[in-house]
Structures are given as structure tokens and as C-alpha cells.
């Protein structure tokens, strides 16, 4: 029983972190049709920026707020200067370009902060632990478990009840026509990409107290968030939530069950879901 609850908590907190990262990826894909290979690098930058800001202000909260903003600005610049040149192109060029951005960002991080890993402590209020049966379980993970659904609800409300959210949905469903009713679609694209990067950066900053901040952290997360997005259905918002939960829980419970090849579990989940539903759980039919 105790093991079950601990696994559940681990799965939920990891799942919520995955959700934050995947939702940015899936939004960018849903609106712009671009699969951003560099999304994990923006996540990593969020963690490193948070680390750097904490050096000056010594406050996790300031880092958590400011770091994602810097990531978003960087994303905005990258969209304006590079990505906007290749929307009409073949998928392969889009993948290669974001891959190139990944190479540059990852190597720059290694160059600036070195190959070693860094540790960030959670803020005082969240650094304690709660007794779960006989184990003490970190408060910070509870914080993540609560934060995930909160962010999900806020985002959902944003997309469905604000004018900005509706505009984004309009541009997502038909960019050409959106321009035809006077929407500045290129600007919407830039902002959506920046928004996606902001979410990635936020995920990175939030992950920094529980994951070691290291140059490989982006590479690790990107594949998992790809899987989340594929099993949830590409571009689907609820898909990202459910997909992240499934992956988080399955990975957490799988650790005990199989041991050595537990890292292959996400891929098995991917294979099974695709066999049953080739478009992912919430995916629309591919026209």
C-alpha cells in the first residue's frame, strides 16, 4: 500500500512536469505545424537561467518568474529571424532547422556553464517534507502535483474564454483565413512560439530543484515529451494532459515491476497506443 502511494505520488509529480513541457510542444505544433526539436533545449535554458538568476537574487521565486521570460524572449527572436522562413517548406527542413537550434543551444550551454551538474534548492516553504506512512515525502513534489492541474485549468480558460486564446485557435485552424479577417498571423506565430518556449522554460525552472541541472537534461526530456504528444494526439491539449499522466504513472510504477529495462516502458506504451489508435488518444483523423 505504502509503495503504491509513493509510486502514485512520484508518477503524478513527474507527469505534471511532463505535462507543462509537452503542452508547450503540442501548442506550437497545433498552431504552427512545427515540431520543435529544440523544445528540450528551451526547457534546459529555463533551468540554467533560473540558476543564474538565483545567484544574484537568491530567490527561487524570482528565478521561477524571470527565467521563463528570458527563454520566451529568446524564442521570440528565434522565430522572427529563423523559423518564419520555413513554414511553407517540407517537414524535413523544419526538423533540421530546429535540430540545428538544438545543437547550438546545447553546445552553448556546455560552453558557458560547463559539463558538470548543478543543484538548486527549493525555497524554504517548499523544502520540507510530509510524512506519508513511514516515509517522508518532499513538499516540493506536492507543489508540482497541485500546480499541474492549476496550470492546465488556466491554459484551458485562456484558450476558450479570452480573445487572445480564440485568436490563437483561429490562426491554428486556418492561418490564411485568419489573415483574411485582418489578424496579424505572423505576429501571432511569433507570440505562440514564444509562449511555447515560456512553458518549456517554466518547466525547466520548476524541474531544477528535483532534477540535476546539467547539459543533458534537455535531450532526456524532449523524447519523453514527444512520446506524450504522440500518445495524446498531436496538437491536442487534453491529450497532452492525459498523455503526460499516463507516461508519468507508467514510468513510476514500472520502476519496481521490471527493473532493468524499465526505460523502454514509455516506448512500449507508445507502441501499444499506436496499435490501438494510430492517431493518439485525442488525435483527430489525419485528412
Amino acid at each position, binding site marked *: 500500500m505504502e509503495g503504491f502511494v509513493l509510486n502514485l505520488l512520484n508518477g503524478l509529480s513527474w507527469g505534471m512536469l511532463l505535462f507543462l513541457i509537452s503542452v508547450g510542444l503540442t501548442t506550437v505544433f497545433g498552431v504552427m505545424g512545427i515540431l520543435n526539436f529544440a523544445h528540450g533545449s528551451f526547457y534546459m535554458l529555463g533551468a540554467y537561467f533560473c540558476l543564474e538568476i538565483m545567484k544574484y537574487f537568491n530567490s527561487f521565486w524570482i528565478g521561477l518568474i524571470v527565467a521563463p521570460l528570458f527563454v520566451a524572449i529568446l524564442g521570440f527572436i528565434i522565430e522572427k529571424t529563423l523559423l518564419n522562413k520555413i513554414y511553407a517548406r517540407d517537414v524535413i527542413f523544419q526538423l533540421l532547422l530546429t535540430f*540545428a537550434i538544438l545543437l547550438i543551444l546545447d553546445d552553448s550551454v556546455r560552453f558557458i556553464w560547463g559539463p558538470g551538474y548543478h543543484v538548486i534548492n527549493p525555497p524554504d516553504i517548499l523544502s520540507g517534507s510530509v510524512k506519508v506512512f513511514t516515509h517522508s515525502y518532499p513538499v516540493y513534489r506536492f507543489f508540482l502535483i497541485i500546480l499541474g492541474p492549476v496550470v492546465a485549468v488556466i491554459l484551458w480558460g485562456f484558450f476558450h474564454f479570452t480573445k487572445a486564446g480564440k485568436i490563437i485557435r483561429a490562426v491554428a485552424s486556418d492561418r490564411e483565413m485568419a489573415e483574411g479577417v485582418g489578424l496579424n498571423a505572423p505576429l501571432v506565430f511569433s507570440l505562440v512560439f514564444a509562449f511555447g518556449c515560456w512553458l518549456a522554460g517554466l518547466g525547466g525552472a520548476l524541474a531544477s530543484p528535483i532534477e540535476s541541472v546539467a547539459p543533458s537534461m534537455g535531450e532526456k526530456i524532449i*523524447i519523453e515529451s514527444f512520446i506524450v504528444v504522440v500518445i495524446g494526439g498531436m496538437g491536442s491539449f487534453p491529450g497532452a494532459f492525459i498523455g503526460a499522466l499516463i507516461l508519468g504513472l507508467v514510468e513510476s510504477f514500472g520502476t519496481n515491476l521490471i527493473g532493468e529495462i524499465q526505460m523502454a516502458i514509455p516506448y512500449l506504451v507508445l507502441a501499444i497506443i499506436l496499435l490501438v489508435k494510430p492517431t493518439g488518444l485525442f488525435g483527430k483523423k489525419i485528412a
Partner: protein
Amino acid sequence: MKKVFIFLLILFFLFLPKISSEYWTFIAIEVLIMGFFAMSFNLLMGYSGLLSFGHAGFFGVGAYTTAILLQHGFNSLFLILLIAIIVSLICSVVIGYLSVRQDEIYFAMITLGFGMMLYTIAHNWTDFTGGSDGLPLMNEPILNLFGKKISLISPENLYFFTFVIVFIGILILWKIINSPFGLILKGMRENKNRLNFSGGNISSIRLFAFTISGTLSGVAGFLFCLFSSMATPDFLHWSFSAKPVIMSILGGAWNFYGPMVGAAIFFALEQFIKMYTDNWMIFLGILLIPITILFPKGVLGTIYDYAKKRYNSKS
């Protein structure tokens, strides 16, 4: 004219180790293997219009099969090659079956996922694969050719062995793209809907193409294992899958030999940049940006088109 050129090229490759240093022979071997890998990959991308981002998986399966068999005392290289072919064929069929129903970016992501699954297995199944350190070749690979034992530790021997296998592999690819199936593949790239309404079973055609491509990638992996004297999880990583993509784009995916040319350019650049800095990756990234933005048909393809236009406007 074209035949003469190809003949001269083959002649050049045959005598390369005689005229170059060991260092360049090694690079030539790597170019041949990676170029062949890229050409196998390009049967999907350039000829069938399918972008697989998990081809390193099959490459790695070929490499690991080779390393594991050599470690367990198998000494017939041809038998090992045969087994490597069978193993990568099985992997391609299984993964292909799960992937071919998807299109474009979905296909790319799913193949990426499955490629990473193979990576994870190689990385974590330590007892069998040596884990993250990989599997070094403990035994000297010896080729038994009509009773004559040839050691492939010698770069020159390895070069000829690689050359022959790659040559046969390219010949197979050449036969395929000039066969009825080859035209069907191009038809699928051009308009899969129309092909379907002309009686083509898209999933099945794709599965065949995927299997051929994956299996030949496994052969490239077999060679690469001999070349690097080991198999490591890196061979299966998705960033390794990006290599054939880059090479095909560099050399031109619509040209049969394009990916091979692309491999040569890739390694030339790598050698050149590594003379000045260790941060080859960052430079690769910086190089890729103008390539993706400015060369819509791949580097050679775009230059060729431009030249053709210039020529046409003059005449």
C-alpha cells in the same frame, strides 16, 4: 560519358588506399559506410517521401549484432553479416508495421520513438550490450576468403572489404530504384492518393520500402562496428539518426548518389572544423541554418537548379 565517369570513380576508390595515408584511408572508410547508410535511408526520404528519424536504430542493431556475435566467438564474418541482415530485417518489419500507417511528421516522430526504444535497450540491458560503455571487439575480425585469412585490423584490408560490401549494397539499391517497384516508390512520393486509386496498397508498399531501407542500414551498422571496433549506444541515438538526413540534404535527396556526396562533404567539413575547434556540434548547427533556409532542394539540388535556370535563360 556518365559510364566513363562512374568507371573512373570506382577506379579512384579502388586505388585510394595506395595513394593516401592511413589517416585518410580511415576517413574514406567512414565516408563509404556513412554514405551507404545515408543512401539506404534516402530510399525512404528521397524516393518514397518518408522521413524516418529513427534509422540509427537499425544501424545500431546491425552494429550490436556484429559485436555480440564476435564477442561470443563467431568467426565467420559472412555468417555474422547474414545474421546481422536477418536481425535488422526483423526489427524493420516490426517497427515498420507499426509506423507505415502514419504520414509526414507523424511518421518521423514515431520512427524516432522506436529508434529511441532500441537505443534504450542498448543503453540499459547492460549484461547483454555492455550498457553505456558499449561493446568493444575483443577478437580480431578475420575474413576467411577461400581459405585465406585476412585480418581486418589492417586499414587497407578493411577498406577493401568495406568497399566491396558497399559496392554490392549500392548495386542492390540501384537495381531497386530502376525496377518496377522503384517507379511505384516515386509514384508514392509524388501522389500517394493517386497511387492508392490506381490499385497500390500504400501500407504494404511502404512496409517493403521501410524494410529494405532498414535492413541495408543494418548492413552499414555491421561495417561500422568493424570500423570502430566497437558498438556503442551512441550509434542508435536520435542525434545519430540526424546524420543521414543531413547528408542527404547536403548532397541532394533526389539524386541517387547525392547522399554519398553529402557524406563526403560532411566529413570534409568535420575534419576542417575540428582543426580549429572542439565545438564541432555548434558549428554544424550554425552551418545547418543557412542550409535549411537557403537551399530548398538541398545544397547540390538547389545549385543544380540554379545553374540549369541560368543556362536555360542564356540559350
